[in-house]
């Protein structure tokens, strides 16, 4: 599903150039659950941003379902993103001004789903995430675990092929963290490809494969049995 080859990314200031990704090559197959680990600054989040088409690489190739997307313009990237990729963030990134229902509905609005269908789909996913009773609440009125469940609901409401999760349990206690990991595992079992950045060995164990990065390069891969 994803094939990146010799991907490069630099961050430049006036005096310093930092290599975030140093000719990194990774393959992810459809239906896989991959965890990316490594110390701070090793390039995990940069990789996730590039995989999610939120950032441009400075070199190398990125094939998404066999299509080269590294040189896509913003409109094409937005289009590909909204139909294929769901995101889950450490800090949830819900829009404070929208209710739970409206937050989850937003991706459907951007993909042009009719209003009547949106309601059914949002309700279905909220039900599945067991957050239906909070549909009219605003994010600030929810606990961290509830907010992350809403974020997962929003990520999956468009039935994306790929979910990118950036430390999805980083702001949660262990109980809520486990719940979120169970949700991701369920989604993966239903066929969604998941790539997750994490610092937690515990969370990484939910994945099929762990890729360990250092200084923008793969240093080790562990296949989970």
């Amino acid at each position, binding site marked *: 599903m994803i094939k990146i080859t010799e991907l490069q990314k630099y961050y430049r200031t006036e005096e310093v150039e930092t290599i975030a990704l140093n000719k990194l090559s990774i393959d992810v197959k459809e239906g896989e659950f991959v965890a990316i680990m490594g110390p701070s600054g090793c390039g995990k989040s940069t990789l996730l*941003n590039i995989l*999610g088409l*939120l*950032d441009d690489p400075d070199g190398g190739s990125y094939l998404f379902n066999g299509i080269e997307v590294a040189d896509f313009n*913003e*409109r094409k990237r*937005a*289009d590909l*993103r*909204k*139909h294929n990729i769901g*995101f889950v*963030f450490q*800090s949830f*990134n*819900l*829009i*404070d*001004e*929208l209710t739970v229902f*409206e937050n989850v509905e*937003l*991706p459907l*609005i*951007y*993909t042009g789903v009719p209003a009547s269908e949106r309601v059914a789909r949002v309700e279905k996913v909220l039900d599945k995430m067991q957050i239906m009773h909070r549909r009219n609440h605003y994010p600030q009125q929810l606990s961290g675990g509830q907010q992350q469940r809403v974020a997962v609901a*929003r990520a999956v409401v*468009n039935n994306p092929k790929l979910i990118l999760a950036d430390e999805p349990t980083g702001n949660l206690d262990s109980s809520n963290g486990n719940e979120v990991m169970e949700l991701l595992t369920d989604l993966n079992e239903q066929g969604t490809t998941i790539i997750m950045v994490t610092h937690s060995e515990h969370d990484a164990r939910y994945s099929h494969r762990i890729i360990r990065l250092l200084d923008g390069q793969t240093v080790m891969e562990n296949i989970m049995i």
Partner: protein
Amino acid sequence: MIKNYFKIALRNISRNLSYTFLNIFGLTLGVASCLTIFLIVRNELNYDNSSSKANRTYRVTLNALDFNSNISLAVLPALRNDFPELEHSTQVFYQPDATMQVGQNRFREINLVLGDNQLTQVFEYKWLAGDEKTALSQPNSVVLTSTIAKKYFGNTDPMGQVIKFGDQATKVTGVIQDPPTNTSLPLNLIISMNTFFKQPSTEFWNISGGSYAYVVIPEHYSIKQLQSRMPAFIKKNWGADIAKDARLLMQPLRDVHFDQRYINNIVTPTSKDTYYALIGVALLIIITACINFINLATARAIKRAKEVGVRKVLGANRGQLIGQFMGEITILVLTSVILGVAVCALFLAKAGTWMNITISAGQLLQPEVLGWIAAITVSVILFAGLYPAFVQSGFQPADSFKNKVSASKGGLSLRKALVVAQFSISQIMIVGTLIVAHQMDFFENQDLGFNKDAVISVRMPVKEKREVFEQHLATMPGVKSYCVSSGSPSYNNSWAPFSAPALGFPKDNVTELKFIDEKYTDMFGMTMLAGQKITRKAPTDSTNKVVVNETLMHDLGVQDPQKFIGQLINVSGQQATVIGVVKDFQSESKHKKIRACVLQYNVDRFRSASIQLQPENMPATIAAIGKQWSQLFPDDVFKYEFIDEHIAAMYKQEQKVFTAFQLFSYIAILIGCLGLYGLISFAASQRTKEVGIRKILGASVQSIIGLFTREFVLLIAVAFLIAAPLGYYMMHKWLQNFAYHITIGPAIFFIAIASSLVIAALTTAHQAVKAALANPVKSLRSE
């Protein structure tokens, strides 16, 4: 999608009430000011434009020694005779005030006009009763405006009612709707011309003050051709000599209010530049309000970066985000415009009191004005909304999540540039207001060459009772001194030709002529430069002695007043001996240079008493004067005027402008302060962590306050460098409208920058002090 935009816009607005308030309040004031100014300017620029024939209507004026609005009553009959193709023509005789008697009630009325049937056709007054073709045909007919009809007769039908005007009984033959207030021929009553002028005049030079002639040319008729035929017309009717000295000029009616060359206008003409300047002020105000929008929106953009990132991650493209932000600004602007229109209606209701302008709030619903409102709305949405929308929609999601958008150097520079623009605007307004205020003070209080304080002017309608009235004045304890004359030094209504063949000036020039008694120069504190004052003259005394002003003496090439004593000059064709030279005094407004003036004793022309009051208990003295006056002149209504108020009235137009400048300057400054307050509040909240760290490292409260205010002081200094030359240039140009004006000194600019600093300090102080006094532990924990 649109629903979603509006939903989030409304929630954003309600969740950020202080930001919403700053923007809506500022823009409401901006829109209200802008609309009010536009309506005032439209009213003024549309002077004499109510008739559908206004563009074909001309005032016939005289250009001989001067540009004179008045012409002889002989001109119009001849014009009608020689140019029968003229569509309409009319001549009026204007009287500023008169006493009207209805039954036992007497009214002192202003703006009385003697006219004929064609008057109402030229100006297209709307008739409510009577026949416009015949109402003024018969002598002793009077046509009233609806306000006067209501005032005199209430709900009774005014038609056929009798109104006494002096000893003439006139009958109401028509009622017209009140004419628009923006007319150079204001009127409340029209009495048929033939009530007083039975025989047509034939003398070209017999020019009565107050006589104005108007013609309407047919469509597609060349005014240039008509103008070119005037010399031949004068020659044919009054001879070659007059044709050589005099020109009849066709002055477009639409120009009357703006042509300041002419003397004897009913309404003092004004400069169009003044109104263009006001439009400039309106634009500056709306730009200031837009700058607030842009500054606050781009400052807040950092806060909204995460939302932008999330929306992009969820699939929003840039166009959709621009649409969302434009939707939000549209709601804010529409709310502000609706409130602005309501505030404008309030401004207009007060404009009559503040600026002596009557504009109905109903004009806000006129299609043209609605068009302006729509244009303002769209312009503000685009001007204030597009840039922030583009900036915010351009954030990259990856940067948004990493909080990297706060370091947007471009946005910061633009905000600084816009703050500089706002301060420049404020300082230009401050400089403008100060200069107009100084000039107004100069008008009214600088040395006029005579004393105007505590002096009232009272008419004396019956000349035979003058001496009795004077005797009463002499015995009144509250009267300090008095004199009688044709008018006080600031009343100017009599002109005459003068020449001095003996001094080598045989050709006529024009002089003002004042008839004064022997007490006049002393009572008004006028300074004699040489010779003696006017003395009382016995009726049998045939000598003609005059006192002249310095300007007349200079006009005749004499510099030393002593050498001018005893010189012979001709005034109105009669030889007179100069017995004294008086220091120049201001008899007209300071728009014009002081002109030649002759003071002469003539008991037959003493129609006015000038009375200097003791400062104690003036109202009682005036009441006592009024009582004596009413006993002496029982058929008239007592009316008095303070001379300083009369002088102030000469600057009514300037006063209007000054009031407008003052009001709208305050508004512009207030709007700028709102924006500044918003920015400093935002900066304080953004720099909470920095302030906390600085305090932990030992920074004092003063240094933290300095941290916030230093930048604004620098921006004010930069703004001053822009505002000072611009303000100087604009106001210097404005001052050129006056023959006598102040000099723009450095003090005004010092006050402007000092005021800006004080205003900025007061605006930023609260937030800066709050930030400086905050507990650093709390601020770091919240980070």
